[in-house]
């Protein structure tokens, strides 16, 4: 099978996918994650200082992706694991990211639930394993079961 993965894009994203490397705007101090070409806050500066986010945050909102709704690259995961949770996570440093939620014991997440970054296999493409961040939900006892 011919590869259609863009090697430059793959390589460039490694610091953010593996280590949550963000860019702090040298103009206004806003933390951009994923790193941007121009600061998303001040829209003036293109100068950034790399910073690693600590991987802790809270569930801002979430949804459940059923087997039929999953993109094809997640088919193998769904076959083994069933429907899965995807959330918007608000990180402690401010940025919000969309990511899969790793939910111990398959209990439903809740809004405001603390999470921490984990590295997992996201999917395989052209035989290449794509590793990247997901967020594991913590502190399940405090949940009120609110739907996202």
């Amino acid at each position, binding site marked *: 099978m011919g590869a259609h993965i863009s090697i430059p894009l793959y390589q460039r994203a490694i610091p953010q996918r*593996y*280590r949550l490397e963000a860019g702090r705007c040298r103009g206004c101090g806003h933390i951009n994650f994923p790193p941007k070409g121009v600061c998303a806050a001040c829209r003036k500066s293109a100068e950034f200082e790399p910073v*690693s986010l600590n991987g802790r945050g809270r569930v801002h909102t979430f949804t459940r992706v059923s087997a039929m709704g999953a993109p094809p690259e997640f088919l*193998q*995961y769904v*076959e*083994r*694991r069933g429907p899965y949770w995807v959330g918007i996570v608000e990180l402690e440093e401010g940025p919000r990211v969309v990511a899969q939620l790793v939910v111990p*014991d398959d209990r439903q997440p809740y809004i405001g639930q603390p999470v921490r970054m984990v590295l997992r296999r996201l999917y395989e493409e052209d035989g290449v394993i794509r*590793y990247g961040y997901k967020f594991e939900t913590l502190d399940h006892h405090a949940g009120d079961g609110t739907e996202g």
Partner: protein
Amino acid sequence: MAAIVGCAAYIPRWRISAQEYVTAWGTFSGGGVRAKAVADADEDAVTMGWEAARRLLPEAADRRRVRALYFASTTPPYRVGTSAATLAAMLGLREDVSVYDLTTSRRSGLAALRLALQDASGRTGAGGPAEADDWILVVAAENPAAAPGSDLEHGLGHAAAALLVGSRGPAPVIWDGGSTREYLGGIFLRDEDGSLQQQAVSSYTDHGDETLLRPLITALRGACGDGFPRVAVMLAHREPARVARLGARLGLAEEQIRPCTVTAAIGDTGAAAALLELQLVLETAAPGTHVAVLAWHGGAAADGLALRVTGPVLVPQDGAISGQLEGGAQLTYVRYARLQGYLAARGR
């Protein structure tokens, strides 16, 4: 003297009990394994190894002190590839770090630790004697699979171990050794088979293990002199039920043989097993304790290592084995088979 500085483990939360196998297959062939840990569908040896290493070295500044990484696994995500380099990138190790992949042998976790200790003492490796501030990281991780229903498959568990080695530390090495011979036996995997296999003649396996390990025990006894009876010896056997008998055949006193507590609780984790058993002892060892660990693959090659504990070894709270042995969610056999991909849809 080169020493172990710290250690951390990652054991996945899922468990399947021996009883679930009995319900599904009518029997369980784990040889003393009560339950086993099972990785999630998106975990592999690299992600589990990262989790163990992250717990051991949570601070980026500490990771910059690592000058070499030894990664051991018989289940690397790529048969040919660079798992250790991926792990180094995930951890943010410095760019001049030396990385080594030790694969294909289920004793390679302990072999990696021996090499790291030799590296730290300047006996091998390109870097020469370690600076006082340098560390060497050893990661062993394993998520083995075999044909569903085969006896071999029953005992296989999933986990990762990470150890930090320095030129000095609270658990210095006092002896290490190896033993090698060609032997028909043990576990093997050929590409055309696609699944682990085993020469299953247990009486020969016992004989092979004994013949292989005897020279190591003799060397260990010589290195320890009169103190030998006080050395706690761990035989990292993939079948915990066989440890006592093997130890007796090797002439060890009953009270110096340590049971394979970790393997009994989470299954045979191959390359990671010996390091996990060692960590469990180090978590509670009093200063003055002498401990030896032996790991081998079939009857064909073995490694041995002995340490003297002089102070507390760094074990982060979330990386302690004692808090992870029992695990979380229990799997039914059907759920386990699905998680392992045994029940995946075909013909798509």
